[in-house]
């Protein structure tokens, strides 16, 4: 409830907007979240730049083609794309005021996220087991940092979503929980898009060179 929430004019013109934008203060928070995503896009851009510069500097270690398994990466991609779909349904249900449905689809999103992170961890463990850790070469350093940065983001998202599930149970669909759900969905879609770039640049690109 910022000062401007008391401003009647601003309130009236927002009536036709989706519920998460109608309250002025919550709407301001969504603006802030978009700007956070901008900074995060740039974080990933810097990681991609590092990767692009270092990808051929394999030293005595393996080349990209030796490291990447397209099959697992493809499965990971399908799982994450599906989870983007499920969070989309959760937001649709939120706008229909169907709280149970929101919780179920959010829970499903969490499960898909967990599956994604698990597969990634197994893949990493396999690489490390054959001695391809991130100290082997500049290429592997940049690969692991880029992909693990994404994986860490997904893990954070999972913790966030679980916290949200608790809050939904306790408080129901309020102005605040709607905004939290909406910003979570923005975050999740953003991670999905980042993964599409990783899949294209790292995994598919790695097969080409």
């Amino acid at each position, binding site marked *: *409830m*910022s*000062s*401007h*929430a*008391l*401003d009647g*004019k601003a309130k009236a013109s927002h009536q036709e907007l989706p519920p998460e934008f109608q309250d002025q203060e919550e*709407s*301001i*928070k969504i*603006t*802030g979240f978009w*700007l*956070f995503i*901008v*900074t*995060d896009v*740039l*974080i990933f*851009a*810097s*990681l991609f*730049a*590092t990767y692009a*510069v*270092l990808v051929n*500097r*394999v*030293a*005595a*270690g393996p080349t990209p083609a030796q490291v990447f398994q397209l099959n697992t990466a493809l499965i990971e991609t399908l799982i994450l794309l599906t989870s983007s779909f499920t969070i989309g349904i959760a937001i649709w249900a939120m706008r229909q005021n169907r709280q149970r449905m929101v919780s179920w689809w959010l829970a499903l999103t969490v499960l898909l996220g967990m599956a994604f992170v698990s597969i990634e961890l197994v893949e990493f463990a396999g690489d490390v087991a054959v001695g391809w850790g*991130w*100290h*082997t*070469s*500049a*290429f592997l*350093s*940049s690969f*692991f*940092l880029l992909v693990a940065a994404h994986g860490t983001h997904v893990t954070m998202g999972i*913790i*966030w979503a679980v*916290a949200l599930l*608790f*809050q939904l149970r306790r*408080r129901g669909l309020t102005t*605040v929980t709607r905004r939290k759900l909406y910003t979570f969905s923005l975050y999740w879609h953003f991670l999905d898009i980042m993964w599409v770039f990783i899949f294209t640049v790292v995994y598919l690109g790695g097969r080409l060179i």
Partner: protein
Amino acid sequence: MPSFVPYLIHTLFPPWVRRPTEIGAEIMMVAGGAFIVYWLLKYKKLQWLWNEWLTTVDHKKIGIMYLVAAIIMLARGGLDALMLRTNLAMPTLHFINASEYNEVFTTHGTIMVFFMGMPLIFALFNVVVPLQIGSRDVAFPRLNAISFWLFAFAAALFNLSFVVGGSPNAGWTAYPPLTELAFNHTVGENYYFISLLMTGIGTTITGINFLVTILRMRAPGMTFMKMPLFTWATLNTSALILFAFPPFTIALLESLLDRVAGTSFFTLSHGGMPMMYVNLFWLFGHPEVYILVLPAFGVFSEVVATFSRKKLFGYPSMVLSMTAIMVLAYGTWVHHFFTMGAGPAVNVFFGLSTMLIAIPTGVKVFNWILTMWGGRLTFTTPMLYFLAMIPTFVIGGATGVMLGAVPADYQFHNSYFVIAHFHQVLIGGTVFGLLAGVYYWWPKMFGYKLNDRQGKWAFWLFAGGFWPTFIPQYWLGLEGMTRRMYTYPFGLGWHTLNVISTIGGFIMGAGFLVLASNVLYSRRHQERDETGDAWGNGRTLEWSIPSPAPEYNFAVIPVVDERDWWWAEKERRQSGERPALPRPEDIRPIAIPKNTPVPILLGAAFFLGAFGLVFTWWYIALAGLAGVFGLLIYSWFQYDHYRILSAGEVRESEELLGRLGA
């Protein structure tokens, strides 16, 4: 004695922090800390400190805390500078040795940029911007406090390196391989990377916070082209922060991983590439220059209009040129390392983009001068800083264009010419501007002006000391003296110029002492300002409310219909066109953000984790991380962030301030 004690002593206090300077600093820190604790306990101020300051989310108080921190850091950075100058005063003078010299120039640069310049900017943002746009706080008051505490604990961590473990020593740019573990065994560079990561997170959040505040929380009627120029400067600076800090974060993170986790991003072995760091660093570093100078431009635009009693000349071109600088700032980073050898085409591109920036900057200088034309000038301290800025900054800018000329740059690169150039723009632009801003808005922060007579003494010492300090350095650079050299032999012809430069440095130091004494003197002896418009000529919204502003800022949010709204409003009130004071029924309840201990605890948890990481004590690092997560999850579940100030309470407070009509 348990066996880990000698290990701890050896790790925390290695021989290179057991020199007289370090031990002296340790004694001072312990004694100072003990005195503060004693004072707090004796006068029972602990509760007051906690409630009023440490847990506050009020933007005005956060601004004041930034200001205090910045002044303390200015003292530390300034002492570093005087140590450097003393060592260079005479040929073969070994006041400090080579490795100490490395540490001192590293901490001087890092502190002046990240722990003096940035907080001073944020002090002004916090104090001024919400008041200038007619808002009751920033968009995210809690995040604002978190930003401050991340900065404060990072500054503490960075300064701790001096007495615990050893200072960083690879320059403020921290290029690999100088920072590579194989060549640099002390924990100093860990301190550098970790504390800058911490303060960088805080800075990014501040950037987001002020962008959203300005974009979404302006008073009704304040369109973009009615915003005061300082607010425009804040908007552009915040946008720069938003785009500049992420690459820096990654550069720091990768360097840190190289040191503590055995990766090979920038190492000489395993295929690492040091020049990648340099690119990422300057991708941030060049916009950072404009992050530091745009707020100063904003201050000058306010100061020159106020003390010329005229509206700013060429407002639209001021806005346009500032935005042009913001955009161009991203296209110039390679000019910091033309000598990398990227080839003529790349270097020419970046040389041209560098020179292009001189055009919008020139527009601004002309507009300021034309604002004074025909005005009724008063030469207050802030105005003097503005006047001193013009020749200083113009010459600094012109030598910048010289540096942008690629073939010549191969000659200037890494010489004292560069040192002279960037001190001339950073002191002549940023420091003069921020000091002008501090003097100008001091009455808004504290309710009284700083003493003008002492202010002028400080000005003449500081600005007068500037010229002998830095102008000789251009010649030293042209005569071949390279930066970061800790001593030099007789017979190179550098002696006289270095003596002059050192004397100038000490004159500037004296200026700082007068400034500090002015702060203490004015607190007791200066007249209180009852009007809220301390200079009598205020033009923008912040001067329409009492000084210091009440916690809710505006009892009634004004409707802005003019660019210099308060100037126009004063005329309307005098002519009786508008009532001078709001009626009681105009005042409505106000939501005020509640105090919270989360930000300071979050800072402390970060500090703990960071300290563990510096010494690669992973359990401590993990404990800090767990603390950070615990606090974040705790705040996710908190919903009740506001308390309501009833209309009656606001009326009472306004009546006490003499601000309520009948």
